[in-house]
């Protein structure tokens, strides 16, 4: 669980600061759980035969699962999901989840830009599977006013 939430102090932030990092080990169970929670039952996210039949290298994590977990280190840093004013990503590469070994997605959250007038910090996410970046232009605008 997150520690007692505290608000990051806008004036103490600098562009380039790493504000959060977290590893997310995904298994097929994670995909089934997300399918149920989100209502996205596309079988490419849980059936090897269907994934293979449409030419995929394996069962893939839902893009929206990757997007959903990647912002969590920022939510914990910000202390309150209500401070997330805007969040966008581009899906650049699929996350293949091995039935035995799973797949570990790593997230690094860095200050990308500071808007002193609005007191909004743009946090840029680097989201990787091994050496490959899986989300592009992953940006979170956090209101710290």
């Amino acid at each position, binding site marked *: 669980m997150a520690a007692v*939430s505290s608000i990051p102090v806008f004036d103490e932030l600098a562009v380039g600061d790493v504000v959060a990092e977290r590893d997310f080990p995904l298994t097929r169970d994670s995909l089934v759980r997300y399918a149920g929670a989100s209502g996205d039952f596309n079988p490419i996210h849980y059936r090897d035969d269907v994934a293979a039949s449409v030419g995929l290298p394996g069962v893939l994590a839902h893009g929206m699962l990757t997007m*959903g977990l990647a*912002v*969590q280190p920022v939510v914990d840093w910000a202390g309150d*999901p*209500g401070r*997330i004013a805007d969040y*966008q*990503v581009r899906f650049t590469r699929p996350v293949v989840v091995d039935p035995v070994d799973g797949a570990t997605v790593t997230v690094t959250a860095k200050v990308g830009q500071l808007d002193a007038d609005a007191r909004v910090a743009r946090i840029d996410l680097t989201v990787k599977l091994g050496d490959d970046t899986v989300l592009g232009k992953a940006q979170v605008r956090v209101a710290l006013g």
Partner: protein
Amino acid sequence: MNPELQGRVFPPAEPYLVGREKVREFARAVFATNPVNLDVEAAQAAGYADVVAPPTFAVVVQEHTLAQLLAEPDAGIDFSRVVHGDQRFTSTRPIVAGDLLTATLTVASVKTLGPHSMVTAESAITDAAGEHVVTAISTLVVRGDE
């Protein structure tokens, strides 16, 4: 894809009532650890009426409007060729359990890139009072024959 889709506004989707256990289920599924997402007392201590949904929960509400778009008879979108390109959520406030949300989809743009088409769909989500909560924006790429 039909270029005349651009600018089309769909009828509001059936209202979606946000359940507390649905918020918790979704929060666990996206590895949320913030107590405000899971614990009613923590959420109330932070000033919310009930547990707060994670930032991407709006996709569950948006989904019903995307289904309208894909089912539109003159859209010409082959679902088996659709790839999710980009996603964005622009929030006025977070979604909280108990919210009754209504989503209205507008086709913001339709573009052609070689054999592929791209459609950007904006679903504006409002609460029972008609106030804006969040807009979910998806860009879908419809792959053509190479």
